[in-house]
């Protein structure tokens, strides 16, 4: 009984935090065909302007921490290859798989899987059971990446 109130409170807090409202806790089903996910994860088409924000936002894609991007910004990372021209080198389906789960292509990859829940270890409490990006954020991001030609 002594635990009941804090537990309920914690649940309330978790539910009311913006992260809990926006992150997916259950994956939408998707189909992998060769090295691509051909169909979109959502019915709403991706928005490139919102996708650009996702790529730059520290608390969401944060792509710029590891990748050079064709944008005006100080301090771009180079842990991964530059993203310039990535919309030309890959089809949207190929990019979708790479964002969703790069480890399906290269199990040793140091690129995080942005839409995966299983197989993770020691995840910080506030992120347990949530994907890094929502399905819609993935689609927005893809719409943006396809503009990089």
């Amino acid at each position, binding site marked *: 009984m002594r635990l009941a109130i804090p537990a309920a409170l914690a649940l309330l807090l978790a539910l009311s935090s913006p992260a809990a409202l926006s992150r997916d806790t259950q994956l939408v089903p998707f189909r992998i065909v060769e090295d691509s996910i051909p169909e979109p994860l959502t019915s709403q088409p991706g928005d490139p302007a919102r996708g650009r924000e996702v790529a730059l936002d520290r608390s969401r894609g944060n792509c710029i*921490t590891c990748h050079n991007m064709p944008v005006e910004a100080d301090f771009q990372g180079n842990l991964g290859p530059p993203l310039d021209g990535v919309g030309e080198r890959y089809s949207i389906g190929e990019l979708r798989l790479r964002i969703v789960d790069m480890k399906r292509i290269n199990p040793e990859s*140091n690129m995080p*899987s942005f839409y995966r829940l299983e197989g993770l270890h*020691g995840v910080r409490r506030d992120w347990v059971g949530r994907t890094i990006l929502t399905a819609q954020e993935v689609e927005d991001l893809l719409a943006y990446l396809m503009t990089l030609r």
Partner: protein
Amino acid sequence: MRRAGWLAGAGALALGAAVALAQGSPPEPRRQIPNPESGLNYATPETRAIQEDDFLNPAFLWVEEGEQAWNRVEGTAGYSCASCHQDATVSMRGVRARMPAYHPRLQRVVTLEQQVNICRTERMGAPALPIDSRPLNAITTYIALQSRGMPVNVDISGPARPFFDKGEQFYNTRRGQLDLRCGSCHEDNYGRYLRADLLSQGMSNGFPTYRLKEQRVISLQFRLQGCVNDVRGESPPMGGEEFTNLEFYLAWRAQGLPVESPSVRR
């Protein structure tokens, strides 16, 4: 049948262990980075300049506080550190270079921080100081300074080895939502930029270090919490077993590098 099979397996394991013991210690581990480089090589010229001048290095405020604490009587036994160890410039020379070290009575590896607290609680009758607190960082910085320039040289042989192995395992386990291991950044990618940060080899020879961002001296385990947190991992507590073993492993990675405490980092 299944039970018998399991028992046979356990027997084989025990036999394997006995053979390993009879043959002496397990094989010497191999370092991913055989010729390590200090984080100093990855610091900006401005940061280097502060580290290289003791009058500019703010960590020397901690050194002074540590020296005063060294000579201050605390606790019910009426002792100071100096009561047992006299002149730190003599008795503490080399200590930072060989710690963490195996503690035979406690039968585990202890860090310099923990050793200070063992002396306080067991000999001085004084309370343990919280890990990464200012008074503890002051004492460890003062002690570490006495080893400045000496090569890191920890002993991982014999009974220390299982603790080393656990530290190595922690280092190589991918963790957190970003699913990275320590070496993802500090072995696969040193010399590359993570946003504004030039990734170093993550060597521990400069700790305790003055962190410009925190505007204070930080202990190694505070930095480790930061790295685990950055991959959205759940960090173990400072002073706990996991980080102690990890710190031991990190010291071995840095074997041969000069002790540079108190270093300065961004």
